[in-house]
């Protein structure tokens, strides 16, 4: 598997690719990549808005710990990520 169409060179080498489990689905990630970046590149349509740790829309539950900012937290091998139901309606 390649780095995927949304990922841009340079930076990622194939040997370092690992997997995180997002809502039960395996999603590839690379060292240094934020959880939000892995979800976005993995076509998971994550909540991602301000991208600088301020709006907290991207918060997820990581390995059972709540309130983790997906845009500021690097993915790690074997990490279990649970996204939250969106409170905002799609008005």
């Amino acid at each position, binding site marked *: 598997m390649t780095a995927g*169409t*949304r*990922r*841009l*060179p*340079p*930076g*990622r*080498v194939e040997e370092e690719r690992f997997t995180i489990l997002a809502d039960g689905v395996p999603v590839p990630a*690379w*060292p*240094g*990549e*934020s959880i*939000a*970046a892995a979800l*976005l*590149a993995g076509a998971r*349509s*994550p*909540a*991602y*808005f*301000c*991208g*600088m*740790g*301020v*709006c*907290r*829309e991207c*918060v997820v539950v990581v390995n059972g710990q709540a*309130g983790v900012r997906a*845009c*500021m937290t*690097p993915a790690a091998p074997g990490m279990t990520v649970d996204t939250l139901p*969106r*409170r*905002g*309606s*799609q*008005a």
Partner: protein
Amino acid sequence: MKTADIAIVGAGPAGLAAAGEAVGHGLSVVLMDDNSQPGGQYFRQLPHQFHHVDRIRGGRAGRLFKVIDHPRLHYLPDCVVWNVPEAGVLAYAAGADSGRVRADAIVVAAGATDRPLPFPGWTLPGVVTAGGSQNMIKGQGVRPGEHVVVAGNGPLLLVAAMTLLNAGATVRALVEAAPFQKRARSRLMSLSRSPTLLAQALSWRLQLAAAGTSFLTGQAVIEAHGASALEAVSIAPIDHLGNVDRTHVTTLRADCLVVGNGLAPAVELTRLAGCAHHHDPLLGGWTPRRSADLETTVPGLYAVGDGAAIGGMELALAEGRTAVLAALLQRSASASLRRRRRNLARRLDRLNRFRAAVADIFAPPETFLGLITPATPVCRCENVTLAELEGSAAEGATGMVQQKSTTRLSMGRCQGRYCLATLADLVATRRGIGVADLDWPRIRPPARPVRLGDLLHEAVPPPALPEDPHLPRGS
């Protein structure tokens, strides 16, 4: 408690410039930053784990970054400053290293956040801020979408569009609410003081146009469509009063909509510290009152860069240096310090005039409230719609604080950063008064959410409490 001559909040351009100036004059510095790498939003870099990446080393940015390794500087990355518990002290959360810093002078260079404004569909996944789009590309090497519309108001939209184009995205349209062309012509003279920036802006416009981007000026996104993620964007003309012409709607297919209406300074810490603020839309909204030394009304507390008043990277660098020099001059007034301070003052004047010219070109419509429909969430976190706010107002909750307590607007996890300015506009319009005269909710610690577990690591003595009358005496 850590101690230093100067404590700096924020390792973006302003904070790094302040730190460089301080260590250069022999001062000790504690530099705290919410990110894991220095640079802030402007100099955001790919993660250090990435390979074959050209790191910022040489040039002006490289010199700025060098301060991180200086022996007199203590750098605390992944660190959230959450309170100003007393004069000269900052409380910060950084996992097991959480604690407090006491310093002779504090420089707040906390940066800014995007100011996106509500419209139907703005909570759909795929709608991101200009800063969010920039950071996903510059900081993560991931394209936020394939077919993108960039919309809002202000000079950052062009930067966001160009970054997307360079990242291989198709930028379908750049939708600017200001009637840009007319004003641009009338203000070209004042901008020509900065020919490099002007030439760059023109070159980017040409490159985007050549790649098929439509430049829609005097228009705004009136709705983002999609079932579970963004699928299309509707655009309509908006006049200088904010009236939307819904008879001329263009709809474009897009999987990403980048929105931005300028930036707002992060004034939580200066507000918590008790500094006086005033409201100036030209500077991004609430901004601390500052002397020519950039000192706030709290002695020894300086506010610089976009975290105080929106002015861009160049101004941030000059402000960061100025604040440290001013603090130094209060201790000892050497001729060389005075000379450097005077040179910086001239530079600040020039950059402030440039800021005024840019703000004039991008003067937005008087209001964007016409884009909000009754079903549009004004508060994203608590999902409070315009209809709910109007309902609560009709029942007598007419002030900002009353609207907040009856609807829960601004009580969610962004702490009101993305809704209070809109609520202020709504209430001010309804009551026919200025936003600065409203009852804005007061700010309380923590300035930003922190993990309680982090604070347990703080080595703070237990507070002196009054004797509990329910306990036996002497226990």
